[in-house]
């Protein structure tokens, strides 16, 4: 990994959050002042099922070091069934990334309800720690994008 010892590695992390549960959970984490690293940037989507595997690959391509998808708990989807589809899509995608040798742990799915500010913050802290330990994403980044 090409990080010099004295330069602290700040990972880039994209979090896709569904509008109804996880985004609200992130809001609750905020209003409860539950600290998690600034490396996490949240993109609001209506539902976890809106997240195209292409978005995730694209994020990695553009230099993200980790991507996390948060949605309503299975059974609680605002749109009834969206997260069930997301769960299958992500299960297959993550398995494929693992198969081509991308360190697993760079991708994660977590179900966070609107009431789970604590869980949201904990999840983000854990995820950032994980990505920091994995270091820079060098396998999926399109090197041309760094120029």
């Amino acid at each position, binding site marked *: 990994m090409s990080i010099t010892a004295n330069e602290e590695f700040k990972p880039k992390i994209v979090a896709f959050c569904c509008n109804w549960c996880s985004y609200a959970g992130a809001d609750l984490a905020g209003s409860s002042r539950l600290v998690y690293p600034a490396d996490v940037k949240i993109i609001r989507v209506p539902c976890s099922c809106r997240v195209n595997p292409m978005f995730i690959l694209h994020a990695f391509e553009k230099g993200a070091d980790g991507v996390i998808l948060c949605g309503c708990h299975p059974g609680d989807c605002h749109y009834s069934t969206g997260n069930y589809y997301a*769960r299958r899509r992500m*299960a*297959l995608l993550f*398995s494929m*990334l693992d*198969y081509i040798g991308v360190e697993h742990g760079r991708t994660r799915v977590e179900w966070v309800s609107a009431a789970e500010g604590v869980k949201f913050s904990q999840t983000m802290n854990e995820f950032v720690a994980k990505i920091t330990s994995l270091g820079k994403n060098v*396998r999926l980044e*399109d090197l041309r994008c760094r120029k």
Partner: protein
Amino acid sequence: MQEMINRAKELLSDGTVNRVLGWRRGDMSYNPEPSYFETAEDLDANFVYNGFCGANLSKYMIEGSKLEGKTLVFLKPCDSYSFNQLIAEHRVDRDKAYIIGVGCMGKLSFEKIKEQGVKGITNITIDDANENITVETLYGEKTLAYKDCMLERCHVCKGKEHQIFDETIGESRDTKDADRFAEVEKIEAMSPEEKFAFFQNELSRCIRCNACRNVCPACSCRKCVFDSTKFDSAQKANVDSFEERMFHIIRAFHVAGRCTDCGECSRVCPQGIPLHLFNRKFIKDIDEFYGEFQAGVDPEAKSPLTSFTFNDVEPGVTGGRR
């Protein structure tokens, strides 16, 4: 083969069909190509069916369905899965096709023949029993076992049964002698570094000719997302290994749950990239996670990615299986 020609001529002459979709003799004995035939004369002169007719004709029926009248299409057992899948996706019109299921004794790979150290090939003939092939070369004749020259996909043959047909002609042979997922499992057992190196090596050869996409019966979009401006993923001139990786993952994802494992992608790849390893990984995962599923068996069946159960595996668990 003659039986097929005779039957095709009958169906043409009695007006059941307006044309025949089959394989046309190529410039060499080992490279027939898919083609329409509209006359008895053309059929007699150019129609061919032998061990080299690996091409899956299902996808051609997307266009065939738009033509006037019915088209007679010859489908091998494994091709018929693709046709069924296309019916499920409303891409072909069953009523526009007259399907003759043709027997298949396993199909041959020119690459496999060359791999056995045969050079300067001028002609290849296959014995009637499909046990041996005789390769005429500039340096003399050589006999090879049919089995050793088969396409990878034939070693994991899905069976002799046609999934859909109006009538059948000829005998089939189940050529399965390998485990379908053995190669996938071998890769799964590698370390992340080995896996990455393996795919890096394979995919670095990709020249982005799109042959895999063009031949794939599941890749039947009118306009591919990779050619669309909507996704900012349109082809870039300056391709590198990264983009190939993304292209092949996304392509495999798009056909996941719909891919019948017909193996055409690997067959046509001019660079010999084992593209089926992507599709088969998804098939294996789908089988493991959601129960066995073979696309193209039942056109009414819901694809694994457009259905779910309340207790599906969690992505985290899956990702961390090992």
